[in-house]
């Protein structure tokens, strides 16, 4: 029996009219999508509108169908965005930028050429070939010859300071402290130039421009070979994250040791450590982690609880999911619980993870490699620092893991 005969004998249901509109309406009502990029001028109005979103939802839902029919061609080719938190923005029709908190981008161009100005922060770019794409920074330009790369721009005044060292550590192992511009290439290649000298960086390479303005090759960044499968890619990514985690952890330990040594013996005792147990309900990991808010105790504590939960979901869950997928490759039916206990300590203007332990639980997944992966991955998360006077915040975070 041929496939055509089979299809005739076993017909399938057709999508009903208006199906796509209904999907998008549901997205509007409960979406967890990247927000459309507001311009700097419109950001305040957008935030105000967000507060009143529930009041205008019915109108939005009704207007959506009409809007979709009249939606302008393509994403904005001109934009100006300051990222208050990590976010993804489309730049023209051929690029997406993943912005870290505090990054600032302005861009303009047409279908043939896109110019981006990045004056601060860390941004990862994915660019489709076929049109010119250039990132201009105060220290030099990065011209795209391939597809995927990361640019970190330092403030010149902060380049030698502790907060910037922390940011370099986050940017990637091997980044030179004191560099003003740092670029790493995941795929393809880019040209790093200061208008007089240039350096072509290929996949797996990194380069930097320091205070002397000269582009130099940096220590190589581990990268998956082109022919590596998903497992090979994940292994390389894990290796890179572990290097980053090691750097962050070392730096945090040095900071704490230095602070301890400098503290006078007569110092009054600090506020006892704060402990949060998050969340009260269990988190389930499938491919799509679900999260619901825990009951608040007070406004500030509730905000901090929610902030920590959101940050863990955003920064840690994707890596934890990779750990679990690797475990499933070794043990296809593995499932259970991991109860993470970690401390957030202040490090300059950010909070970093100082220690990660696993609490005992009868359902704990006992695989040592998986446990190591879960612990190590958490070191890369960056939080707001603990409140003044609080040395560290301890967080207990139970995570359920089960095949979907």
């Amino acid at each position, binding site marked *: 029996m041929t496939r055509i005969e*089979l299809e005739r004998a076993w017909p399938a249901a057709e999508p009903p009219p208006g199906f796509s509109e209904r*999907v998008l309406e*549901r997205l509007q009502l409960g979406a967890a999508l990247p927000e459309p990029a507001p311009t700097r001028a419109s950001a305040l109005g957008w935030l105000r509108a967000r507060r009143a979103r529930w009041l205008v939802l019915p109108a939005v839902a009704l207007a959506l169908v009409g809007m979709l029919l009249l939606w302008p061609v393509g994403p904005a080719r001109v934009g100006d965005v300051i990222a208050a938190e990590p976010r993804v923005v489309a730049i023209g029709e051929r690029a997406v930028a993943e912005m870290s908190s505090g990054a600032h981008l302005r861009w303009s161009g047409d279908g043939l050429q896109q110019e981006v100005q990045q004056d601060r922060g860390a941004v990862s770019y994915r660019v489709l070939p076929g049109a010119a794409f250039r990132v201009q920074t105060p220290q030099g330009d990065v011209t795209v010859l391939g597809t995927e790369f990361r640019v970190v721009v330092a403030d010149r005044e902060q380049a030698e300071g502790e907060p910037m060292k922390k940011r370099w550590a986050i940017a990637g192992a091997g980044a030179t402290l004191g560099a003003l511009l740092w670029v790493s290439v995941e795929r393809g290649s880019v040209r790093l130039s200061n208008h007089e000298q240039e350096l072509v960086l290929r996949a797996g390479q990194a380069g930097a421009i320091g205070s002397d303005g000269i582009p130099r090759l940096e220590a190589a960044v581990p990268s998956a070979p082109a022919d590596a499968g*998903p497992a090979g890619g994940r292994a390389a990514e894990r290796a890179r994250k572990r290097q980053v985690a090691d750097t962050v952890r070392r730096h945090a330990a040095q900071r704490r040791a230095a602070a301890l040594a400098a503290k006078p013996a007569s110092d009054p005792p600090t506020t006892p450590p704060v402990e949060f147990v998050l969340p009260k309900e269990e988190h389930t990991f499938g491919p799509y982690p679900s999260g619901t808010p825990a009951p608040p105790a007070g406004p500030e504590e509730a905000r901090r609880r929610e902030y920590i939960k959101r940050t863990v979901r955003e920064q840690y869950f994707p890596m934890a999911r990779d750990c679990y997928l690797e475990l499933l490759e070794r043990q*296809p039916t593995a499932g259970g619980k991991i109860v993470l206990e970690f401390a957030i300590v202040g490090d300059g203007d950010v909070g970093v993870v100082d220690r990660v332990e696993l609490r005992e639980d009868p359902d704990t997944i006992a695989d040592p490699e998986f446990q190591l992966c879960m612990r190590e991955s958490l070191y890369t998360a960056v939080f707001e620092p603990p409140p003044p006077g609080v040395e560290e915040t301890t967080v207990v975070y139970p995570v359920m893991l089960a095949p*979907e």
Partner: protein
Amino acid sequence: MLAMPVHWDDGEIAPGLLLRCQAGEPAALRAFVECYQRAVFALLSRTIGRHPEVEDLAQETFLRAIRALPTFDADGAARLSTWLLTIATRLALDACRKRTREQRPALAADPMSASTPEHEAQRAQLRDAITSAIDELPSDQRAAFVLAEFHGFAIEDIATALRTRKSTVKTRLFRARAKLSRALAHHRGQAE
């Protein structure tokens, strides 16, 4: 209207459109849904039967996919359609497991077009034979069969979608095909 081609040469959405979907642009997301909705409905309706739940599951499939799209690696080995249909398959199998034993899926209930009453009767008999045979298949075997025969999934992709081993997929496919072959042979025997 979109400024770039919706479909790429291999039947997937164009890479530029995928980037716009990953950035959450509504017009691109609409094109994404419209590009793949037929395949998703076909898979769901053949796996769980023609049931009102099909649209709910199709919506859930797209909502999950859209939320996870920023993490989809366009340069990775997985095709977008394979990834999307894997989500749909898992949702369908979950739905099958939740159903009570009494609620057997109602497969292929639509009448087929036929040129003559005689042809119509023959096709109806064939349809009934296939429907009956498929109805007897466990949901895991049916899902493997649908993915292989209607959506061109490789054994490895089916194994990923069903979270099982390739050898298990081969066994399920063998059994499903054997049952259908027996049903067709029986039908032909009756027709002769």
